[in-house]
Structures are given as structure tokens and as C-alpha cells.
């Protein structure tokens, strides 16, 4: 087995409670335990996280770039502007809503 075959993991950190986990990078490790230890050593040397998530990159399901149009354009403000608050015109007297 060559190093090429060592699984790739993605690392997510939550800097502190109240925030979401955020992707910070990836690393190679042979198993979950080693991945967790490597994530700690590599990405949290200065207290960057109070919680670490790791997941094998092969287990991530990602949208394909060529599906971008189909997946994302319904939410395009130009296609369905009525889903956005600025579409609605209010009387001038209403300052904030």
C-alpha cells in the first residue's frame, strides 16, 4: 500500500459554542482516530476549536459544477424576485420593516 491510498479527510472546526462548524482544510490519515489526532495537531495548535468534525472526503456528496444552473437558479433574485423582501413596495411613512 502506498501513501496514495491513505484516505483523505475533510476537517471542520467550531471555534466556540454558538457558531457552526466550518471547513478548514483536509488531511491524510489511515483511520478515524489518526485523522482526529492529525486534525488536532494540524489545525488547532492555538485553540482554534472547541469541537472538531472530520469526515472521509470520499463520503462527502457534493453538487456537480455542471448542475449549478439547475440547482441554484430558482433562487436567483432575477428569476423569482417575489421571494425577496425588496420586491415589496411599502408606503414611505413606514421607515423600517
Amino acid at each position, binding site marked *: 500500500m*502506498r*501513501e496514495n491510498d491513505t484516505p483523505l479527510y475533510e476537517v471542520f472546526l467550531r471555534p466556540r459554542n454558538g457558531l457552526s462548524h466550518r471547513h478548514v482544510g483536509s*488531511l*491524510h490519515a*489511515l483511520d478515524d482516530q489518526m485523522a482526529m489526532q492529525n486534525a488536532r*495537531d494540524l*489545525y488547532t495548535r492555538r485553540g482554534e476549536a472547541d469541537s472538531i468534525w472530520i469526515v472521509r472526503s470520499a463520503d462527502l456528496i457534493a453538487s456537480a459544477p455542471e448542475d449549478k444552473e439547475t440547482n441554484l437558479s430558482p433562487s436567483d433574485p432575477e428569476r423569482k424576485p417575489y421571494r425577496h423582501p425588496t420586491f415589496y413596495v411599502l408606503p414611505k411613512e413606514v421607515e423600517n420593516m
Partner: protein
Amino acid sequence: MYSQGLMGVEETPGGEQDLLDRFQARIDAGEKIEPNDEMPEAYRKTLIRQMSQHAHSEIVGVYPEANWVTRAPTLRRKLQAMAKIQDEFGHGLYIYSAAETLGVSREEMVGQLLSGKAKYSSVFNYPTLNWADLAVIGWLGDGAAIMNQIPLCRCSYGPYARAMVLVCKEESFHQRQGYEAMVALMNGSPEQKAMGQDAVNRWWWPIMMMFGPHDADSPNTETGVKWKIKNFTNDELRQKFIKATVPQAKLIGIEIPDPDLRFNEETGDWEHGEIDWDEFWSVVKGQGPCNHDRITARRKAHAEGAWVLEAAQAYAAKQAARNAA
């Protein structure tokens, strides 16, 4: 620690004009490029080369420093040297994994380093003769690295830019610990002061070379700038570095070993003496004082550490078999 301005863009864009135009429009609009986006082959190859050289520099860059860990003057200095070295290995790993998003494996990149095919920063091919060298590497070497790396945080390739944000957060510690060690020397005995000055005398020119050839001799800079892989030219970065460094040197009584260094009131720039480009190219091509030592040390570490990987593989296989049973 740092990326060198020298090996930029070798390939000029050719091929499908449509793709190039589409791509350039995205870059010009300030969009970031992500791993699965379409990109010209030359962009991909240029990034792989630059990022792998950058990662190799981080890894090889620990060797000059490792030389002094066991002989650091105090426990505090020893701890800071070890922390810095650990960071540098970390930087290498951040950048290798960012480069892997372009479809090259870390193993392949490391293989190119070990075979001598890939380059790394020429500055690490100079020896660290005494403790003051570590102070100077932190202060000036990492200082030059920061000048190079801060603009890379805004480069067009998303994973590289994000890795640079992580790196830059840590570099500031590297530079400050080096300068602090330098201040301690320059406040010391006449012998210690002489040691500090001697280290600067030996490192100044190799560090000036870290920014790469003059713009006029760097025809590839243009493509790098066009694709926003480089946001400043080599000479611009060198100028920023001199500007920042001169007052720091003056404050602690260090004389910069360049008799031609003078401030031009009209342009607002520092003019410096001639850089010995023959020396630079000979070090890049393998003739520096420590090229052989660095690669030999890296090969030895790789070979002697192989059993760790093998043991971990055996353990992982055993655990997987147990879990399957």
C-alpha cells in the same frame, strides 16, 4: 515559510480561446476559482508547480532551524524554535492538501522533491552557522515570506488563498520571535552584537534574492499577474520588504550590508546594490552550500519514517477486518 517569486508561469496560455476568454472574464470580475471549476490547463499546471514548490519550501525550511534546537540558549528559545518548526511542517501540509485539489497527489509532489525534480526556495540552501542565524531567519526570512504570502491570501485560486490565510496568521509569531531574539543579542555583550551583525551580513543577500529576479528578467510575471496568482511583482515585494526592514534594523543597531542602499527622496523608494544573480541561479540549480545536505536529510527522514506509515497501515487493516467480522 514562504513562496519564491522565481518559478512563476512558464506556460503561456494557448489552446481554446473561448475557455481562456471566459476564464479571464471571471478573474477580471474578481471571482475566485474553485477546484471543480473549468480552468485552462496552463493555470492548473502553474498553480501545481507554484504550490508544490511553496509546500516543499516549508518542509525543507525547517532544516536550517532544526540545526539549532538542541543548542538554543535557553529553554524559552528552544520552545519557540520547536513551535515554529511545527508550524512550518503544518504550513507544508496545508499547501500540499490545497494543491491536491488540482488533481495531483501529495505522494507525487513529495516524490518530485526527493528526486530533485522539484525546486524549493533557494534561501534554505545556506548554512546556519550559529544561534544568531535563527534570529535572522525569523526576523528577515519570515519577514520576506510575509511580504510574499499576504498578497497570496487574495490570489484567484480559492484553496490556495484559504491555506495562505491560515499560514499568515502564524507567520507573525515567527517574525516577532526572531526579532525578539535579535533584540536580545543586540542588547548583549560586544561578542553577541558582533554575532548578530555577522548573521545579518551573511543572510541579507540570500534573503533579497528570495523575491526572485528583477521584473525585467521575469517574463512570466505578466501571466501570473493577469491570472491573479501574483498580485505584486518581484521588485514591488522586494521594495516593500526593504521599506519595512530598514527602520527595524536601525532601531537595534544593525547595519544593512549594502553600501549602495539609499533612500530616493523623489521616488520614495529605496535603491539597493546589485544582487549577485549568478550566485542565485547557481544555488537554484543545485550548487548552493547546502543543497546536497538538505535533500539528503529529507530522503533519510522519508526512508527512516517509512515504517511508521507501514505500521499505521497494518493497524488500520487489522481494525477494519475486526470491524467487518
